[in-house]
């Protein structure tokens, strides 16, 4: 009987030990391991590389102040471009590196690919760049979303920009054939058609530079306004070539990925083009938090190349501070369950709460709403520079 009780106690202790070890993976007495994945090469490297750099800036700044509740943060970033690489990177980070939290800094393609896996293992996951509904639906307790809004929110913002300076009747939709623009297109097209607009849709391959055929189609349809769903490079070359095919007098609106100053040298005189921005200030805009952030960026990485820092730098930076809020609220009980519960209590999280710079919108979460940010600033090119209107 005694032996039986002893075996019971040993089994119970070992189960408790195993449970505790697996729930607190990535957490030691003095460090918390954060895993992140995103593209560092290829056509969407403009998402992952800035995301990594922005996150590292915030991690270094927080660690300089002593970390969160005495624990330093450690960022482990895995390069992942394709869907297969994204799943492999997520598995490696969770199962091999044993990270405590997983950040999907990979845009819609990677986020969609990793969605099933992160749901199945239950690791607290922060989708900071993916707009795709695949990562948002069905709702998962362990998956949170950051500054990049869902397609329905951005679609409403884009329609507002399309109709802001007039009342167009015929609208051209120029959309990339890859995940992010297609996710937006699937939402915005029916919304425009419901509102009675005459819509002409043309698509293009990722990194396309020749839009002659699509623009000629818009010319044929006599569109009043064109909405570009794609990157700044794609939007820039499309707008530039519009002049070459005689598509003049058209109102141009571009989505968040295209709000980048590097569009201006492509087009030349680009003033008046509208878009939305997932942050309150554009890099370089006259605002104190942004000036301080840029000084921090330069101190870490030197003089920025054309187009950097971009929205993904800012979002990566801000996202680490949101994580800091959730970890801080979880206090010393750093289990996945408690982190998720704490995350759902985060309200109005801003970098300045931990000594950072407020270059992102505040993020709030609840048990039923895991979308941290719903704000989209109105961006317009003024004097050759993108500006987010107050």
């Amino acid at each position, binding site marked *: 009987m005694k032996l039986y009780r002893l075996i019971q106690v040993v089994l119970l202790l070992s189960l408790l030990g195993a449970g505790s070890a697996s729930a607190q993976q990535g957490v030691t007495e003095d460090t918390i391991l954060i895993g992140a994945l995103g593209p560092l*090469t*290829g*056509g969407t*490297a*403009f998402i992952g*590389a800035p995301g990594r750099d922005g996150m590292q800036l915030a991690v270094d700044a927080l660690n300089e102040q002593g970390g969160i509740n005495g624990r330093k943060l450690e960022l482990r970033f895995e390069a992942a471009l394709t869907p297969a690489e994204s799943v492999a990177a997520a598995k490696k980070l969770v199962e091999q590196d044993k990270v405590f939290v997983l950040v999907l800094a990979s845009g819609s393609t990677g986020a969609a690919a990793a969605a099933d896996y992160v749901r199945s293992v239950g690791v607290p996951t922060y989708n900071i760049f993916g707009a795709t509904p695949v990562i948002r639906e069905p709702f998962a307790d362990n998956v949170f979303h950051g500054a990049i809004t869902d397609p329905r929110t951005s679609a409403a913002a884009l329609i507002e920009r399309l109709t802001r300076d007039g009342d167009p009747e015929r609208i051209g939709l120029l959309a990339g*054939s890859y995940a992010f623009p297609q996710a937006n297109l699937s939402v915005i097209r029916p919304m425009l058609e419901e509102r009675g607009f005459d819509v002409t849709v*043309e*698509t*293009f*391959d990722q*990194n396309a*530079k*020749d839009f*002659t*055929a*699509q623009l*000629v*189609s818009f*010319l*044929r349809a006599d569109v009043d306004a064109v909405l570009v769903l794609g*990157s*700044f*490079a794609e939007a*820039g*070359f499309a707008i530039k*070539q519009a*002049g*070459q*095919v*005689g598509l003049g007098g058209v109102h141009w609106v571009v989505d968040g990925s295209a709000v*980048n100053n*590097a569009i201006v*040298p*492509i087009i*030349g005189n680009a003033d008046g083009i509208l878009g939305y921005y997932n942050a309150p200030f554009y890099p370089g805009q006259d605002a104190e938090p942004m000036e301080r952030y840029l000084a921090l960026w330069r101190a870490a990485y030197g003089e920025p*190349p*054309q*187009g*950097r820092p971009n929205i993904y730098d800012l979002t990566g930076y801000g996202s680490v501070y949101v994580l800091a809020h959730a970890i801080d609220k979880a206090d010393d009980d750093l289990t996945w369950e408690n982190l998720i519960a704490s995350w759902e209590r985060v309200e109005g999280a801003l970098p300045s709460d931990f000594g950072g710079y407020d270059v992102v919108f505040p993020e709030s979460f609840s048990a039923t709403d895991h979308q941290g940010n719903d704000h989209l600033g109105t961006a317009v090119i003024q004097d050759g520079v993108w500006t987010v209107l107050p």
Partner: protein
Amino acid sequence: MTELALVLLGGLNFGAIYALAALGIVLIHKATKTVNFAHGAFVLIGALGAYIVQVQLSWSAWLAYLLVPPAVGALAALIELVLLRPLRRADAFSVVIATVFLGIALSEGVRLIYNAELLTVPSPFQGAPFLIGPVILTREVLWTVAGSLLIGIGTTLAFRRARVARGMRAMAANHRGAQLCGYSVDRTYALAWFLGGALAGVAGVFAAPAKGISPDLPIAVIAAAFVAAVVGGFDSLKGAVAGGLLLGVVETLAAAYGDSALKNAISFMLLFVVMLYRPEGLFPEVKTRHV
């Protein structure tokens, strides 16, 4: 009719860049029998040279046309000297593999140095476009098409007539015979790589305002340039120019009057049709033999 003219102009604009890139590939292959898969990376370096001259140094765009091609040519000749010359006695497969990975290494080097999605270069022309009836012809499109045609014609004539190209002509006609006649293989190969590299450099300078500079530029250019070269006839300089222009026009016509998704597919369909039914290309070099 106006619409067709606009579509054709759009196609010629991109076809002109394909033509210049194809010209360099054909020239190197003609003189050295090397298929240079690093050619796209040379185009990228040419485009980057335009960025450095125009944006970083704020010099005139015309200086880019003047300085960048010889610089890229010199780099290509240096690569031939240092990397490919030791492989000259290796089998063709080894040389092809070497150029493939050389191209990747050069592209990745550019990516590491300029960690940006895209670098942009302003057009050398800012003036109002020309109006031919309802058809708009911008100065940039006119310059790209006319410039590449002039360079294509100039290269073809130089290859045929210039004294300095005699060694390359001899190698192209009969590699072993040329050596027996005393032409220096080292000098001829170096010259061919210099000229091929310079043509890639000038293609890059033309491509920079139209396509921007990104690490995916080599793939985009090399694929189209190879199709253009095969369609034109892989040993024909005039065929490379004609093939490039034809490819640009066919791609744009297919996208405009078929489906925009057809744009890339049509180029490979064209390639297979030519390879199946006219493997010597549409504009092969006429070979005359005096007996």
